[in-house]
């Protein structure tokens, strides 16, 4: 009976991910090229925003990954805490820098978009602020991984930090709503709303979002493999020294 927990075995994980990774990476590359070229060159300018609207194809997918990357780390941390699978802890560790980078990309593209549209690079708007706080959480998480020497201790500590951090990240998200009025628009991609983004923009945006998800998966797999191999190498070196 095949079970998902089989992939908790590092060897099985490496074998499968070795087979999947090239396809995933190629697919991510193709989707990224198609989505961005389609979005940048084959969609009309918005009647009010002009061509600045096209930065949406980077801004929205990176924000999507920034939030869901943390969610993935949360799930991986829970799996580590409950079932003690090392691959899971390493996957959480591997995802953190990617999520942090995506947060930076979302903030930067947001600033570049905000300058012509809102007339300002930065506003203390709830969404912007909570993204900044999310970035701080990523930094703290990465710093804690780097600071603790023992691998298992580091995995335990960061997992619990991830749990507590998630609660506080959500709290901050709703706290900033009380603190300042928003400049950022609400969600315009939900399934059940009439005022969604028009289809001309919607379809390439979907391709870009899919591309970023694929890219995230490929990078996480790659980085997890690297972590596993680095740990294996450390173990081998330690054995050499002992003998």
């Amino acid at each position: 009976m095949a079970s998902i927990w089989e992939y908790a075995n590092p060897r099985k994980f490496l074998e499968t991910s070795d087979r999947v990774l090239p396809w995933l990476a190629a697919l991510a590359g193709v989707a990224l090229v198609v989505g961005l070229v389609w979005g940048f060159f084959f969609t009309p300018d918005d009647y009010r925003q002009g061509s600045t609207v096209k930065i949406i194809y980077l801004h929205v997918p990176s924000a999507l990954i920034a939030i869901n990357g943390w969610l993935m780390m949360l799930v991986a941390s829970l799996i580590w805490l409950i079932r003690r699978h090392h691959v899971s802890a390493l996957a959480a560790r591997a995802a953190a820098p990617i999520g942090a980078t995506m947060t930076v990309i979302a903030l930067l593209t947001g600033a570049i978009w905000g300058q012509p549209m809102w007339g300002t690079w930065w506003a203390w708007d709830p969404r912007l602020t909570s993204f900044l706080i999310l970035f701080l959480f990523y930094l703290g998480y990465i710093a804690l991984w780097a600071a603790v020497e023992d691998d298992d201790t580091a995995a335990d500590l960061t997992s619990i930090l991830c749990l507590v951090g998630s609660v506080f990240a959500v709290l901050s998200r709703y706290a900033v709503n009380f603190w300042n009025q928003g400049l950022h628009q609400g969600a315009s991609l939900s399934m059940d709303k009439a005022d969604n983004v028009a289809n001309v923009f919607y379809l390439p945006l979907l391709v870009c979002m899919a591309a970023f998800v694929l890219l995230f998966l490929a990078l996480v797999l790659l980085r997890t493999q690297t972590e596993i191999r680095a740990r294996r190498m450390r173990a081998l070196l330690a054995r050499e020294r002992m003998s």
Partner: protein
Amino acid sequence: MIALLMRDLRLAVRAGGGFGLGLAFFLIVVALVPFSVGPETALLARIAPGVLWLGALLACLLSLDRILALDWEDGSLDLLATAPIPLEGIVSVKALAHWITTALPLVIAAPVLGVLLSLPAQGYLWLIVSLLVGTPALSVIGTFGAALTVGIKRGGLLLSLLVLPLYVPVLIFGAEVARRGAEGQAVQVHLLLLGAITCGAMALLPFASAAVLRVNLR
């Protein structure tokens, strides 16, 4: 547990200046603000609640690594962990001791410093209330951060990096209550939310702190 609390309090008062240090830091931060933004009374009165909250928060942060580090170094933390009290109780007592020795003096000193920043008269009550309700959360969250970094050499900077994002909701609601109080607006909603965060933190975070401490003591 009471014995442990008394021990911590006695250590904090007698052993080397930790007791007054946070207070002195608070005073200095608040005294530096007029130098950096200018001495106009109207401006200072407007930012006074926020500055006082931020100063109190930083003073709390400064003393966090004292909560567990000394006990960790001389090994008494290992003894406490094997004591019949659950570790959750121990970290709660530690947080309480930190609150009494660091946060309570700050709460008492805040109105005095409010005079320096020409805080409006109706703001004092809500400043004290918001600090009283909010600072326990700062102590409990800080204990969690201290437990996380207790095994790390020179973890002070890392501790701030970990703890400050966790302080954001408390700071938002606390400073908001103080500001609305000073401007004579209704404070009830924000005060209740601040209280909710404090209660939630006090109820749940000791378990996380104890779990982290167990990992570090392994």
